[in-house]
């Protein structure tokens, strides 16, 4: 009864009728979405706005957060970014890590995927499993393992390098030139996800394309660059995006191995390490908020650029662009 009356009220002459069914759909639908909507506001949107707000204050975590315990300092924290000792060099460390890590993270998993996709590889399932295995190892365990295996004297990597004739292999975590790259290798070691996604992409390329190319006399390298790469470009693009996002957030193994000093000689002092140290060890939350904003803006800008250019470069078989 009540439903009928309400529908009648709602159906004002100018507006389209919203049926009881639709209304029920909306109620239920939004009810189901509610957990995420609340979570989005409470744990993501409002905190980001709040970080932005904090970046203009001198709030320290030492006192409870309330008016009177902090002052507005305008752009002071943003100026500190260029004055404080560690901020700019650590930006360089993170940038170098990203510039090496992102291409490495595209190429190595792709080569592994091509390898395990080869029909000439015997026991390819076993290979796939074992190549993936490092990805399930917890990041702290990974840091312990790499700290050991890349030890300049006793580590197996240098023993191997010496065995194949490299007399003086890099001293990895004790050499500022190589320490960052050692962490790049640690990350590449755990990129099983990318490999699996690329593998699925490779398996989705229609075999007729290769057959047609063979008829036209194309060799394996031509086929790879003119058929495989364009056909799996959406997957490459996805991996690239995730890789860029994670590169700018990376710091945990560096913190574990290089401590807060980024040993050796600041070469492992990543930008997010400085953020963590300033915010939670030195409790300079206002200044740390600036560092957080930098990470946020750089990530957003990078993904924005990627999507802007990606839409042109990525080939979508179905002709859609999303």
């Amino acid at each position, binding site marked *: 009864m009540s439903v009928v009356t309400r529908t009648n009220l709602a159906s004002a002459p100018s507006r389209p009728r919203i049926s009881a069914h639709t209304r029920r759909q909306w109620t239920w*639908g939004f009810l189901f979405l509610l957990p995420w909507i609340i979570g989005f506001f409470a744990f993501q949107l409002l905190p980001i706005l709040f970080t932005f707000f904090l970046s203009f204050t001198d709030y320290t975590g030492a006192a409870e957060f309330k008016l009177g315990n902090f002052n507005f300092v305008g752009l002071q924290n943003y100026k500190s970014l260029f004055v404080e000792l560690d901020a700019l060099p650590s930006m360089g460390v993170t940038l170098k890590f990203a510039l090496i890590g992102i291409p490495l993270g595209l190429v190595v998993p792709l080569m592994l995927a091509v390898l395990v996709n080869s029909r*000439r590889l015997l026991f390819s399932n076993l290979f796939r499993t*074992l190549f*993936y295995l490092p990805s*399930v190892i917890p*990041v702290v365990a990974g840091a312990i*393992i790499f700290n050991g295996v890349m030890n300049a004297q006793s580590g197996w990597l240098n023993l191997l390098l010496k065995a194949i004739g490299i007399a003086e292999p890099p001293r990895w975590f004790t050499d500022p030139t190589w320490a960052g790259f050692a962490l790049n290798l640690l990350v590449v070691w755990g990129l099983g996800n990318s490999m699996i996604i690329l593998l699925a992409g490779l398996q989705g390329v229609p075999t007729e394309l290769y057959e047609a190319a063979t008829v036209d006399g194309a060799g394996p390298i031509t086929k790879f660059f003119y058929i495989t790469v364009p056909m799996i470009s959406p997957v490459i693009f996805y991996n690239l995006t995730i890789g860029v996002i994670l590169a700018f957030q990376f710091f945990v193994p560096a913190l574990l191995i290089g401590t807060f000093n980024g040993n050796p000689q600041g070469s492992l002092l990543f930008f997010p390490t400085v953020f963590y140290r300033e915010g939670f060890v030195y409790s300079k939350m206002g200044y740390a908020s600036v560092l957080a904003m930098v990470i946020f803006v750089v990530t957003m800008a990078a993904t924005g650029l990627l999507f802007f250019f990606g839409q042109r470069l990525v080939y979508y078989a179905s002709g859609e662009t999303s």
Partner: protein
Amino acid sequence: MTTITSVSVASPTRPLQRRLLPIVREALARLGVTGFGLLVLGVFLLPLGYVLSTAFKLDSQMTTIGAPLWPAEQATYNYEGEEYPLYNVPTQDGGTRRLAIVNPYRETSDVVDPEHPEQGVFNIEGRWRTWEAIYRFSPKLKNFTDAWEQVNFPRLFRNSLLLAGISTIGTLIACILVAYGFTRFQLPGKNLLFVILISTIVLPPQATIIPLYILFSKLGWTQTWLPLLVPAFFANAYDVFLIRQYFMSIPRELDEAAMLDGANPLRILTSVIIPQATPAITAVTIFHFFFVWNQYFEPLVYLLGKEKLYPVSVGIGQFVTTFSTYPGRSAATAVLAMLLPAVMFFLAQRQFMQGIVITGVEK
């Protein structure tokens, strides 16, 4: 029947050599590719070999010159109730013989021949330090017991299991509800909401953690598990996306039939949709469990100083820097920390790989 005809047709027309050539070439290609694969795999598994070997051997073995890379101890020979170390001693004809040293001196040594113990102890020429020690495989558990005593591993495991378990339950409930909302209901602005959801994947955790820390400390939740558990009950983009992709592939006929029977949407979800979505739900369960198990930054921030509540990841963090002092113990903790994820992975590989493919390819 058919095989016989095809063979009899193929065999007499071509000479044996020409028939074999492509087979040999294919076999060689397979061997080549597999060999190359093994080489790459060897490099990939080098760190794992290293950590396992280091965990099972005594630290003293690492500094002993001439000791093998695998866990080993010097082989000994029991002569009249005493153990004596075995060496490969060079002989005059250029070969070697196995001898146990009873009394080592500088230029000569008293030795006994294990193959002829009846000869008794005799003295031979040569510096024993130049002789090659004989080792036998001997894994040691000392590092594990040391590590187990140094940090309270049972407590760390219990904490990690509880954290990961509760958080996974929360994530499953929330993400299933949200994914259901995104797949089965016509809602105004649904596409926009979905774009917002997906774009939160980009969000760096650093951008939100200071305000969240302030919020949780105002609530008195810091140094408890609540900041780590409660957000899990509000869904996350990755897992919603994965479950949604799967829900979309489930035909609507069944839930429409249930709707005609008068079932409400919640009922349809629990009795029609969820039973058909086990692969996606398994994948999310594994992923999220691993995610929490690996988490380091958030538990460190929220639990700092409250050691009783530390999960494995934070609890063993100290072992990274003590590596140079106690390599074996550090390696043993790493092995302990990765044991459970590795076993789970081997047991549930298929669901694992499927889940990765859903999130990655179908975007």
